[in-house]
């Protein structure tokens, strides 16, 4: 399909700017500090802090994937695939835990 046409004359790759990387990094550090603070000082919000920690981690992962790993600039198939892989993992997890919790 489309990939076969111009294999040798590569079309221009997207070049991310330093600024963009730095911005991503700042956001990541901010989020890290946030989770640490929530967890260390929000000790009695236990379930809440687990949930926030996981949500924040996921946001961080998305940021790394999107900007550092250039997913934002890759063909859509890369994003679709990674969603499928993650969904697969979540299904494994849900089914195993379900088995344990309903015994």
């Amino acid at each position: 399909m489309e990939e076969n046409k111009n294999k040798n004359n590569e079309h221009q790759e997207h070049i991310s700017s330093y600024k963009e990387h730095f911005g991503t990094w700042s956001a990541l550090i901010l989020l890290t500090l946030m989770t640490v603070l929530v967890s260390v000082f929000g000790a009695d919000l236990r379930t809440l802090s687990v949930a926030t920690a996981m949500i924040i981690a996921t946001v961080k992962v998305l940021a790394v994937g999107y900007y550092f790993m250039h997913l934002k600039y890759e063909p859509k198939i890369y994003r679709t695939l990674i969603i499928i892989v993650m969904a697969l993992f979540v299904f494994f997890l849900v089914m195993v835990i379900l088995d344990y919790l309903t015994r």
Partner: protein
Amino acid sequence: MTAAALPENNFFNAKKGIMSWLFTLDHKRIGLLYLYAILSFFLVGVVLGFLMRLELLNPGQDIMKPHTYNQVFTLHGVIMIFLFIIPSIPAIFGNFFLPLHLGTDDVAFPKLNLLSFWLYVLGALFALATLVFGDGPADTGWTFYAPYSVKTGTNVTMSVLAAFILGFSSILTGLNFIVTIHRLRTPGMGFNQMPLFAWSLYATSWIQLLATPVVGITLLMIIAERVFGIGLFDPSIGGDPILYQHLFWIYSHPAVYIMALPAMGLVSEIIPTFAQRTIFGYKAIAYSSMAIAFVGYFVWGHHMFTSGMSGTAGFIFSILTFFVAIPTSVKVFNWVATLYKGSINIEIPLLYMMAFIFNFLIGGLTGLANAALAADVHLHDTYFVVGHFHYVMFGGTGFAMFGALHYWFPKIWGRMYNKARANVAFALLFFGFNMLYFPMLILGIMGMPRRYYDYLPEFHGLNQIATVGSWILVSGLILMLANLLIGLKKGKIASANPWNGITLEWQTSSPPPLHNFDKLPELNEGGPYNYPDAKKA
């Protein structure tokens, strides 16, 4: 038709010397290396299976002690699963014919391909080294269930390590094929112009890629548990042996479709060639491969119905398991429909495909009995399951592989085998196979558990029939292999396209030249199997 001599320019004589084989980057040679290696290990597995049958001829001890028997069936299972059937079709025929089918000259990463092969050899050596090192081969069954696999003194660590390495080899092959299919199709060939074998390899590769790592890490945990003496599945520290089973089957169920899908791809190749007409329902067959691969990820729990699984989980896993049968049956019906209004050459490869369909039907339909919760409570871990999986794996995939070997024999070696002898071998194999495994289904319904060194007297008769069947089967196998070997040396020179096949591999000479094609291969008008000589519907 027959040319006087093999073409001068072929991949066999393109380079000379043993090194040019061991370090070759040519996908055809790597495919053949796999063929020789896999076949050798397979023969070891067959001998072990044969020994088991001898032991089971009569109740009580015949030729070996219980401990030995347990090691034998474990090694038999490990060899057959990890060394034979999982790599078999993709690594041999996939390597050889995928690039030809796509009209390219190699896979995307030839060096990685060579690495996969050597990893395979390394893993195989580890598996066999257990015969010599440590306290002998593992005696756990190929499933390595904890906690027995952690307690036994036999050399489980090495067997598990072997499976781990073989897993990597399998992952890399899958990765290579996916990239090849995405990037190296000949200009103008869209996904829907690909031969169905390529489709089935594509589906298989995704399973290899995404399921294998899970078993990889699980096996590492077993190794760690053995090395440190305590571990994640040990109840005394709060661990749970059932969790091991979940992890193991998350891989090993999808793995059964690694075994089956490529074989189904072969059937979809070979039937149109001998019916001389286009395949019935191309898209249905292609997409059902993907559907099987996909649904196959979600059903692993059916191996654990009696493990104490909750009713809710059992309900979900059972119903999902039944859903796999639907795309499979779509395939079967389409294959049969492809014979309709064909102009059929009844040749040996086609006979093997018919045998595939028959055996696979029995295998698949007995799978349904296993998938039903109530029936599985009775059938689980009995010979019914043993019968089921030999029917699908050996009666299905094994026979498809024989068929493919006969089908592509002239393409690979440029010669033809003796057809009369091949027919006799086929008859022996088919008859012996059914005589060996059908009694097992009945034994299972009667309640004979598997992995049994000894059995109650009421099971004696059927076990004897099975053992005699194994003798017929093995004689068929020997005849078949001998016939092929003779054909290799002395067979008549075959033409480039002896079956009047239509996929791209038949456009090049037999054996193919080093770089597969001397000119850009021509795509077939209106679909990969659209025979120009046949009438329009």
